[in-house]
């Protein structure tokens, strides 16, 4: 998008660092500043940086992630962990925690997994938004996705 060697090299370097940082933010969120929303925005920034440096097509072809599906999965994943309470005959979204922490990850409970759902939703929504804007033909007539598989018209 912006034909800049510096931007491209920096964004290539930054990408894994930003993703790692976002995961770090997500995991530590329960006790320290961070969490699903912040982590998700960070990860989305990592993706959007690639869009700015290389254009939307690069993101589509290199990662092959359907961000709309990712967001939908995030919503369902988050809702899923609320059901645990319902299944055991208690209120929806009642929290459940493992007794012992898992080495390397920490103590796991349904709120943490719910946060993972938030994380995925935020990544999906934000990145998809940037993609849609960056591929907007009225704004950027040259830029087009390789194949608009996800924009199939409803059957007539």
């Amino acid at each position, binding site marked *: *998008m912006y*034909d800049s060697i510096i931007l491209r090299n920096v964004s290539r370097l930054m990408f894994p660092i930003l993703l790692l940082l976002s995961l770090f*933010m997500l995991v530590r*969120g*329960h*006790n320290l*500043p*961070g*969490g*699903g*929303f912040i982590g998700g*925005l960070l990860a989305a920034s990592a993706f*959007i940086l690639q869009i*700015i440096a*290389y254009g939307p*097509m*690069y993101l589509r072809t*290199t990662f092959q992630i359907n961000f*709309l599906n990712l*967001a*939908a999965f995030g*919503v369902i994943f*988050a*809702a899923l962990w*609320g059901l645990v309470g319902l299944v055991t005959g208690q209120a929806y*979204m009642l*929290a459940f925690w493992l007794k012992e922490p898992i080495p390397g990850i920490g*103590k796991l409970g349904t*709120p*943490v997994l*719910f*946060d993972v*759902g*938030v994380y995925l*939703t*935020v990544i*999906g*929504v*934000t990145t*998809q*938004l*940037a993609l*849609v*804007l*960056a591929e*907007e*033909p009225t*704004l*950027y007539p040259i*830029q*087009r*996705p*390789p*194949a*608009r*598989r996800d*924009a199939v*018209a*409803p059957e*007539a």
Partner: protein
Amino acid sequence: MLVLIVLTALIMAPLGLFARYEPRPVIGWILAPIPLALFLAISALTPEVLAGGQVVQAIPWAPRMGLELRFMLDGLSMLFALLVSGIGALVVLYTAYYLAGDPGMGRFYLALFIFMGAMLGLVLADNVLTMFMFWELTSVSSYLLVGYKHDYPEARRGAQMGLLITVGGGLALLVGLVLLGTAAGSYTISEILAAGERIKASPLYTPAMLLIFLGCFTKSAQFPFHFWLPNAMQAPTPASAYLHSATMVKAGVYLLARLHPTLSDTTLWLYTLTVVGMTTMLVGAVAANRRDDIKGLLAYSTISKLGTMVLLAGMGGPEAPAALVATILAHALYKGALFMLAGAVDHEAGTRSLARLGGLRRAMPWTAALAILSSLSMAGVPILFGFVAKEEQLYAAVDNGLPPGLDVVVLIAVVTSAVFGVLYSWRLVSGVFFGAPGSGMKEHVHEAPAGMLIGPAILTTFSVVLPLGLLPTTGTFLQPAVDAISNEAAKISLYLFPSEISLPLILSMTALLIGAVLTRFEPQIVAAPSPLPPWLNGDRIYDAAVDGVLQGATVFTRTLQNGKLRSYMTWAVLSLIAVVTPPLLLFGFNGLTLPNLDGVEPFEFVSMLLIPIGVIATLQARSRLGAIIAASFVGLMVAYIFVIYSAPDLALTQLLVEILTTVFLVLLFAVLPASFERLTSPAEQSRDGLIAVIGGLMFAGIAFAASSSTELSPISQAFRAESQTQGFGDNVVNVILVDFRGFDTMGEIVVLFIAVLGIYAMLRLRPDASLARDDEEAPVRPARPDEAVLHGNGQDGRSAPDAREAPVAGKGR
């Protein structure tokens, strides 16, 4: 058990999608046992109900709001539940043959089963809110059924009309039910009925009842809302048979009957229901005789019978409950059969017009025999169950609870509708099965397949057999329903041959005789002009109302959504000011204390001052990029303030959101001219500036008022105290987000997702017009999947126009 009965139909609904596979009729034989099993399950509970008991099952849902999934089986709900499941089984089987050649049969079954479940839930519910939920679900699922043939504009119109009218009435009903529940102090139907006297004395009684009446009248197609029902004839015949015989249109009658025991015999109840029911009865009976379409004729006869039922629910008297129950059963039996037979005729002969049909008794002997028997029952000819029900109606009309004058009018009206009933029954039979073979039919008409005749045969058999020897059993079976409706002990006594010559019998015979004579004058009656003035045409009023709403919405939208972001902001800020200012001016300044500035360090003060400077810089910016940077600066300074006051979570979020907002703004602005143009006059600018300043002052005022408030202790302490012990986390903000208020967060991410769907739809799935306009300047086609794609500067996708790639979006309507 009852919950299971209701849920089974709903859960089994997706099974209908198997109807995609051949051979189609088999799916009918696989699916029909489901409602049959429900029928048997309800029958298994019959002894308990016959013994005078009730079966109750309750699952708390939102107990503090009085909301629970509460189901109760008594005589009335048992009668309806048996009709819904029993006729449902026959309709499911019939559908497999009727729609055998239709690719959308799976979709139809899906909607049919949802409808069945909703209807069972409606009649079994013992909580008015539960009942309302199922009530609206029947409207929605019947919308899907009526609009099944959605390629036809008439089907879409009929479906939409039914939905708008019944759901609109449903909204009135909801308010009425809430008022009723408030007056009774409970939302449980049995408790509401127990509090009947108190409710009648309450000032809420009149508004509650009027709203409930509105809901019932729209649902049960009472005059003047009756016109949606003939339009709903666009539904495939199985759906019509189901909607008319057993289910949806009787929901209003059901609710009136349900409330009858303790809420009736007030002037309001007596007069409203009597007048509306009587009018509907006569309008439907007259209109049925002017119809050429056999389904239209049957639809208007249903309207007439629904009017009769509402009249019976309204007029009081010792015999009315028994007559109501008998009418419900008789009507379900013959109307279900007649609709299915009308579908068979349509299916085989290819037309439903009385003028084009005729002489089908030879080609379709079985259909003819069943239709004749059911029509005789509809006409109220002796020894059929329709006759038994009509006798009950006449007894009720003779011995009603109305004041003198009105009671005679009601009696005459009932006899008149009986006369017309004879006439339209005769028209149906003679027009379709007798006379010369019709000219507009397919050639070589054959008898309908056996699968389409099983349902009508069973229903017709009941119409014939019930009076012939099973009357005492039927009476015993219907007695609990009568008990549930009547407000005093009433005995149902069905009879076939009266022991003595009584007034009702004389009236009944007179009606038959006059009806028989009138059949001689059928052409004149059919050609007679409508007795109603033309402006009273419901269809026209409906169309005018819908057009008016659409025009109003267009004007409203043009005013509010004129495509200028500036005016959206103006409206948003203005409405916020309108909502926020009055309470702030009234209460906000009591005990207002200015914030304590003692502990504020100079650098904090400076950083705060930088925010208004950023705002002014944004306003003064001459280039877009400058404006974006200045606006981002404001956001960053807010994040910095969060840092100063040790809110790292907020600061991080604000920082990230600010960065991404800037990125999005740059994405949008990058292709616009670099500098702004002035498109507003100085007057407009000062007006907008004034609105902005007032809005800002209001919000500052709210912030001060909130921080000065000492009445409520801050909630933060409780959260801080419990986050470690209850939520097992040190980060209070995050624990609130994912645990204490996790449900809110759930809602927020759903909103996020819906927002992205909306943006996606707006930008991607729009008509190609806008794309074409751009392509004039840059003739670019979307690249094909097999084309080599370079990432980078977009030097791709420039291929020759490809017809196959033509409009990606915008094909669908």
